[in-house]
């Protein structure tokens, strides 16, 4: 009966209703996000800014409870950090450690992902086992590594001496540099640093493995079959068919691992305590804080560390943008 009259009215009321719904949703959205915002601002953003402030103030560990936000500013902490003779050597150690560990992690993860790619009996068990180093408590696995590598009763040294004819036990975690003789040439080897890099590879390859396996399992089989029909060998198939499709995931994993390895503290602290040529920047911050009890200098050192990280990240973004690729 009312076939004509409501028709022009309907869109108007509907639009009005939609607008209020959107507004209401926006209000609900802010309400729902606010607990997160509060905690992230209070426990992360404000402390980050505060650590910049602390870096410009004189604060000692003993007087930290009485420290005032408005104590006078000074650049003494930065002078201390930059004139220290260990700054550049620990920066260099950090960069070598980061690059080598990340490369090893991604390489091992890639090999593992390709190996368990196709279904076989027991695949679930194998996959879960390979993730164990990543999920187990860092304190427990570093402790086991320390005992395995122990020069007196560690199993690696025992077996090395028995099976591979090592002359003396190797102090993997307390030796800055050893000599490796190859055909009469004595090559210096940074034993401590290599050992912590090997540990990083062992502990974090599961992370790369997990992401690469997810991608590699989702690849369509058609292109590979076509390549096989055209006579491509497995190596060629990998190089020209599989690898290009994995590159985006490899890039993401590499970036994340680079950042996290750069920030790494626990593993090195628990394995070597920063001795034997493994003093990375985060260990240096910790030493300034607890050994020298200088909170201001520790903050300055940590701000320097965050600065280096920011520089690395912005270099990456610039390179990616120039290449015209996607950033992440």
């Amino acid at each position, binding site marked *: 009966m009312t076939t004509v009259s409501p028709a022009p009215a309907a869109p108007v009321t509907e639009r009005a209703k939609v607008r209020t719904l959107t507004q209401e*949703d*926006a209000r*609900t*959205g802010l*309400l*729902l*996000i606010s*607990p*997160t*915002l509060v*905690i*992230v601002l209070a*426990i992360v*953003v404000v*402390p*980050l800014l505060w*650590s910049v402030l*602390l870096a410009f103030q004189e*604060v000692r560990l003993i007087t*930290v*409870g009485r*420290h005032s936000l408005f104590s006078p500013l000074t650049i003494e902490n930065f002078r201390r950090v930059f004139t220290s003779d260990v700054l550049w050597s620990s920066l260099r150690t950090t960069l070598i450690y980061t690059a080598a560990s990340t490369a090893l992690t991604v390489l091992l993860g890639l090999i593992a992902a390709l190996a*368990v790619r196709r279904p076989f009996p027991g695949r*679930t068990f194998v996959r*879960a*086992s390979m993730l*164990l180093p990543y*999920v*187990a*408590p860092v*304190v*427990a696995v570093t*402790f*086991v590594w*320390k*005992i395995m590598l122990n020069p*007196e*009763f560690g*199993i690696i040294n*025992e*077996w090395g001496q028995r099976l591979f004819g090592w002359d003396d036990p190797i102090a993997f975690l307390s030796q800055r540099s050893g000599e490796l003789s190859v055909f009469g040439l004595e090559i210096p080897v940074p034993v401590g640093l290599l050992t912590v890099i090997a540990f990083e590879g062992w502990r974090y390859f599961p992370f790369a493995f997990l*992401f690469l396996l*997810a*991608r590699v*399992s*989702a690849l369509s089989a058609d292109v590979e079959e076509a390549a096989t029909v055209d006579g491509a060998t*497995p*190596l060629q198939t990998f190089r020209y068919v599989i690898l290009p499709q994995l590159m*985006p995931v490899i890039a993401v994993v590499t970036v994340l691992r680079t950042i996290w390895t750069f920030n790494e*503290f626990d593993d090195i602290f*628990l394995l070597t305590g920063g001795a034997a040529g493994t003093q990375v920047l*985060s260990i240096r*911050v910790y030493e300034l*804080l607890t050994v020298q009890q200088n*909170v201001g200098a520790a*903050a300055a050192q*940590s701000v320097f*560390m*965050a600065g280096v*990280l920011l520089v690395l990240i912005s270099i990456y973004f610039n390179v990616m943008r120039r290449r015209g690729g996607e950033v992440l």
Partner: protein
Amino acid sequence: MERQVFGVLRWVVIAGFLVATLLPFYYMFMLSVRPIEDLLLNPDSLWVSNFTLDTYREVLAPVDEGGQGFVSMLRNSAIVAVASVLLALAIAIPGAYAIARLPFFGRRYVSVLFLAVYMFPGIVLAIPLFVLLTKLELRGSLAGLILVYISQTVPVAIYTLRNYFTTIPESIEEAGLVDGLTRLQIIRKISLPLALPSIMATGLFVFMIAWNEFLFALLFLADNRDNWTVSIGLATLSGSVEVPTTVLMAGSVVITLPIIVVFFLTERLLTEGLTAGAEKG
């Protein structure tokens, strides 16, 4: 020919990875059930000839009974981890839903902010938090540690939950709207039950982070032995020469076991929940 080589190589590689990942865990278990004298006499043995459980008795017994007090550390770790999971989820679920679905002001920047947070070195945060907790007289307390763990895990939790919420078809929620439900009712009655697998996976992930965390526990709890969590307890005791290695290995097994059990029970859930979206490349 090359194909056959790779066929064999594949099994060699799988076996190699299995040995490399499992051997340290086997070694941990094997040392934990041997007396220390046995280890010093036969350091190269991979078999248990002299089985004992005294190591476990010693590591678990309270300090005043001559043990290492791991039971109370396990309790502290459990309190911290469970509280972190519940609070982080309570905060992250609404937040993730809002980012996934609701068009509020600043929505795009919020996720970038959270990701940026996750990129900063923990040690940079540790210094001001150390000062802050000292001032609030929360340093050395479990509550302070829980607060820090929540802030560390909420951004990741939001990230994984948001990915999941966006995969729920919007039409289902719209049907609820048409039926006259409010937004909060839709979340509670429609979205939450659908997102349950992802919520469980995220909760387990937070549990693992909180249970395993070391740096903040070291900085905030070192002086207060009563509140030690398992990480700081094992790390501190392994630095002293008085406690036999095999006893500490028993401690390592005790703190690793809950994680391994949780992990094997939920491995599929966890790996799929956390890498959701990775397939798209």
